[in-house]
């Protein structure tokens, strides 16, 4: 009885502001529960109803999250969770990723004879996990969010259940993902042990006021948490799981993972990263050496990702390695963020544009892929431009964008990132980064070579599904729009990180 009195009753109820800031989460949870029911309701074909419910709940959630991007910060559940511009920005990103991946999946699943409604339900669960990743301030909740997101993803990766590669990918992902989670959890335990708090803001406050709390256990805990996140974002040398997983997963899921899961991992990473005192002038913290270690990791990640991508002939694998390279660029942004005027804004901008162009590319790959995820080798694209001029045009836009050529979104965001790194004094890192990105130009353009400059010997003409065409067209428009007029996006990201 004594214990009950300790709980402040006001914590058990929620104010109306708090309810409304939970709107996006409620939409997604509600949508997934409803979808589960409709998946087993007789007479109504589940493949239609579930897709409609999923899309509707995502749209509802986007609308409700859009209000919060400018709203004030709202603390939830005694500070374990927060609803601010940062989380709203990422929520919109994840919701859009999920919606666009679903649009790309509908016909894909039909082609693969995999039309099971749980696919969409799992996507919604995973999306919910991502949203929590961006909004929790508590190491335990971060871990739970990570697991909600990852467990659904493990199943989705193995969704082509009759395919050996898909099963292998799921198994690999599960084992290595579990290992990464374990490392993260171990780090969490050590941080809690040395500071007595799970709240990441609290941890920073405590070590700042009481430097003697920074015991070796604290350092080890910090490092383990960082390594756990580096696993999740697939930085070299923690990337080993990634190419096989990305190749084995169903194509729309690969797109979903390279964008959504990566962005979610970075969203949580940034929050934790700040709380570990990087760039905050804490003496003797892991700050000093963290910079050097990340510097090296960023460099080898960019270099390794780009060089290995050069040798790939399978498009999914190529984009997987290019995603590693992109992690490297993002790490450059992480290193520079505390010392530059824009702070973490370039990372948000980069993640958003990377999501747009990468999802676009994977939507195209979903359209191209035949049964059993075939037809995704470079030579299958030979002469594609003659049969599908618009699809090739769209793919070319995405590839130019990934290569960072103006006037595309990839150009704007990559150089916004490098611009801020120069402000932080990381000139040599930026020089090396741009040289690495020249390597990238070669393999991106090679795809265009196949589409436009090779003879007509690739795939036969096929129908482009309307839903996928719609989402691809939207992403082309966004890629060009952000590329030509990036200032609005920059302003939004700046505002969002200002309150971080």
């Amino acid at each position, binding site marked *: 009885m004594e214990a009950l009195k300790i709980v402040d009753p006001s914590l058990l109820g929620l104010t109306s502001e708090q309810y409304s800031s939970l709107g996006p989460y409620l939409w997604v949870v509600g949508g997934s529960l409803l979808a589960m029911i409709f998946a087993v309701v007789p007479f109504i074909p589940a493949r239609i109803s579930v897709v409609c419910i999923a899309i509707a709940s995502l749209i509802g959630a986007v609308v409700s999250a859009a209000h919060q991007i400018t709203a004030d910060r709202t603390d939830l559940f005694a500070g374990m969770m927060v609803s601010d511009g940062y989380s709203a920005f990422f929520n919109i990103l994840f919701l859009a990723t999920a919606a666009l991946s679903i649009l790309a999946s509908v016909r894909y699943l039909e082609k693969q004879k995999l039309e099971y409604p749980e696919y969409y339900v799992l996507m919604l669960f995973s999306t919910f996990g991502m949203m929590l990743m961006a909004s929790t301030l508590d190491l335990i909740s971060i871990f739970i969010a990570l697991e909600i997101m990852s467990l659904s993803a493990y199943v989705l990766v193995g969704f082509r259940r009759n395919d050996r590669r898909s099963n292998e990918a799921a198994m690999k992902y599960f084992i290595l993902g579990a290992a990464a989670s374990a490392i993260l959890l171990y780090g969490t335990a050590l941080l809690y042990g040395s500071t007595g708090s799970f709240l990441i803001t609290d941890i920073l406050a405590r070590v700042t006021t009481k430097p003697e709390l920074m015991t070796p256990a604290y350092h080890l805990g910090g490092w383990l948490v960082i390594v756990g996140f580096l696993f999740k974002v697939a930085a070299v040398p923690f990337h080993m799981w990634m190419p096989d997983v990305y190749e084995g997963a169903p194509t729309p899921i690969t797109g979903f993972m390279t964008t959504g899961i990566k962005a979610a991992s970075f969203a949580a990473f940034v929050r934790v990263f700040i709380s570990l005192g990087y760039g905050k002038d804490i003496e003797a913290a892991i700050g000093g050496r963290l910079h050097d270690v990340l510097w090296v990791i960023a460099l080898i990640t960019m270099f390794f990702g780009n060089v290995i991508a050069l040798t790939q002939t399978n498009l999914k694998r190529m984009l997987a390695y290019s995603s590693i390279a992109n992690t490297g660029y993002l790490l450059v942004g992480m290193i520079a963020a505390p010392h530059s005027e824009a702070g973490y804004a370039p990372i948000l901008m980069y993640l958003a544009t990377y999501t747009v162009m990468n999802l676009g590319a994977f939507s195209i790959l979903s359209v191209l892929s035949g049964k059993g995820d075939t037809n995704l080798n470079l030579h299958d694209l030979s002469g594609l431009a003659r049969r599908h001029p618009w699809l090739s045009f769209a793919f070319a836009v995405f590839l*130019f964008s990934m290569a960072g050529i103006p006037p595309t979104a990839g150009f704007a965001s990559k150089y916004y990132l490098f611009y801020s790194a120069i402000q932080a004094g990381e000139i040599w890192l930026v020089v090396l980064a*741009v040289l690495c990105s020249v390597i990238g*130009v*070669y393999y991106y353009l*090679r795809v265009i070579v196949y589409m436009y*400059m090779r003879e007509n010997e690739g795939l036969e003409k096929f129908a482009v599904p309307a839903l996928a065409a719609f989402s691809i067209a939207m992403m082309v428009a966004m890629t060009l729009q952000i590329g030509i007029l*990036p*200032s609005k996006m920059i302003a939004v990201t700046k505002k969002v990180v200002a309150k971080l």
Partner: protein
Amino acid sequence: MEWLNTHLLTALTFLPLAWAVAGMAIPGRFSKHWTLAGSLLLFAVSLKLYYGFDPHGAEFQFAESVEWIPGLGVNYLIGMDGISLWLILLTTFLMPIVVLSSYNGVEDREKEYYTLLMALQTGMIGAFVSLDSFLFYVFWEAMLIPMYFLIGIWGGKDRIYATMKFFIFTMVGSLLMLVAIFFLAYQHKMQFGSFSTALVELYKVRLDGSGFLSTQSLLFLAFALAFAIKVPLFPLHTWLPDAHVQAPTAGSVILAGVLLKMGGYGFIRFAFPLFPQAVVLYQPTFLVLGSVAIVYGAWVAMVQPDMKKLVAYSSVSHMGYVIIGLFSLNAIGSTGAVYQMLNHGISTPALFLMVGMLYERRHTKEIKEYGGITKVMPLFAVAFMIATLSSVALPGTNGFIGEFLILLGAWKANPGLTVLAATGVIFGAVYMLWMIQRVMFGPLTNEANKKLKDLSLREIVVLAPLMVAIFWMGVAPNFFFRKMETSITRLVDRTAKAGAVAVALKGER
């Protein structure tokens, strides 16, 4: 109309793109006529620039400024001076010629071809009018995309290798330039309190230029690498012969006529005024490289069995003159260099066009396949002769004025190297005249050549403006100098004097 008068440069930059987008709606077989009409219209509009430009007025005229990315201090800032005026006119002048010359040569995917040509023009004019270094970079890079497709789709047998090499070479240089631009913008913030990439603002930034590895020198090298690749300066020229030989005729013409000028223009507009001390420090290096390029290009051209490759290497040699003219850092040399850029933009396109005409008839560019062409194609032979003489700088043609001024300017800077560079004039005569001899004169031995038709009316129309320009520029150079001399004086003042003073001061200390 009122809008056009106040936004002339914007109209000129984006009209081609708009025209190309509109052209997508019309059937493919009309797109060449549509594009020709557009490029002629554009040339007419660009003439307004000539009449509107007052050489004694403000430094940059027809200026426009719109906020673009305020967070990074980037504005849409355009304008032009007497140097960019002529390069813009060169671009718009060549464009109708290029389009008309492609009438028969291009049959595959016509609509895409002409759309890309127009898009390319937007990139080129945009780069010449940008007064913001970031904006310049955007146009400079965006320009690569259409050229990449033009070479890669309509090029020769090894087109993919050539176009990739072209793209990657340019990218390496320009990305380092971008890093340097960011660094400058950051320095501007440190010194003046706000980010800016506007050129006139960056001119004010003071940087340490005291040594070969000082900040200023490193930034200069980053810019110089981008421009030297584009020029192309020995030893970074290796992409050029590949790209020229594989590109379709129109691609070669634009590449030689305009894109190479972008390198020289970049030196004038960016590298020189931004880093005056570094330029002085590196002057000998570039003079040597320029002289080597002249002689090396000429020697290599001499032994080429392929006409197009010969002309390509002659470009390396001719652009070497531009480099030594610019790096002599005096008004005469700089004027000569700008003039030489225009000359090269007239005579080399003429040669490429005529090689293309022969190729359309015989489907070979090998010199040994020809001989005695004068007998079957007399008109063609006359035109070819004129272009050749212009290329070897015969007095009375445009080439003479440019090379003469450059050598005069270079003599003041470094007599020894000028002697070396001057031998290039002789070698130039050797390879060009030797080619003429083998292709045009001698007995008509090859059966296939006996039935060759002389120039058609369309081809005459294509070549005539170039022939007129060759003589006009050779006889009345003042017509051109009048509009550019103030701008060149400003350039030289800003660069040479600031640099020399700074270096002298350092010597005294």
